């Protein structure tokens, strides 16, 4: 069942210095191994884009 409740206003999305707190909360919901997998996925994607553009 979908939850139609709006996000709590007490839970800010950004810190006063502009850091995206939603991304931090998402990362903290992962295990360290999953965080490493996420980083590896980003690196793999960027490497593949570079290769396709002949920048390797």
């Amino acid at each position: 069942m979908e939850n139609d409740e709006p996000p709590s206003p007490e839970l800010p999305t950004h810190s006063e210095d502009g850091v995206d707190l939603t991304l931090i909360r998402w990362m903290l919901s992962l295990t360290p191994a999953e965080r490493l997998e996420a980083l590896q996925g980003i690196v793999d994607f960027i490497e593949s884009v570079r290769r396709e553009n002949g920048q390797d």
Partner: protein
Amino acid sequence: MAKIDFLSLLRTLDRHRVDYLVVGGMAGVLHGAPITTFDLDLVHSRREDNVARLLAALKELDACYRIQPERRLRPSASHLASAGHQLLTTRFGPLDLLGEIGAGYTYENLLPGSVAVQVGEGLSVRVLNLETLITIKEQLGEDKDRAVIPVLRRTLEEKRRR
């Protein structure tokens, strides 16, 4: 350019029983900071026996200096025993081996401020804790280090809130 594979790099060091701490951007990621890095920064023990194990691991990794990679210059035991920074390329991507970081912190100094983190099946690595990582980034004072400090601080705050 070698394909970056962080886990294979760590597994190779583990297989050779190298004593090291994960620091830098990777330490931040493992603690939950949403940042990106393309190299693995490690502070290694400069003890003679560990340097020998590290050299064996680097041979398997086909490591050479990133500066002038065409010359295939390889680090020696004396390089690894020094306080300097060895910026290497390996078959699994860039690897920075740091004899000291910040205000003269060595592996032995930093070890109490580290935690064991499971990063893969059967693979646990020691990672500098977030508080110490922030302190060292503040000491370094370079733009690339300062830029990431707000994200590390907010990550620490969110962790403490949980």
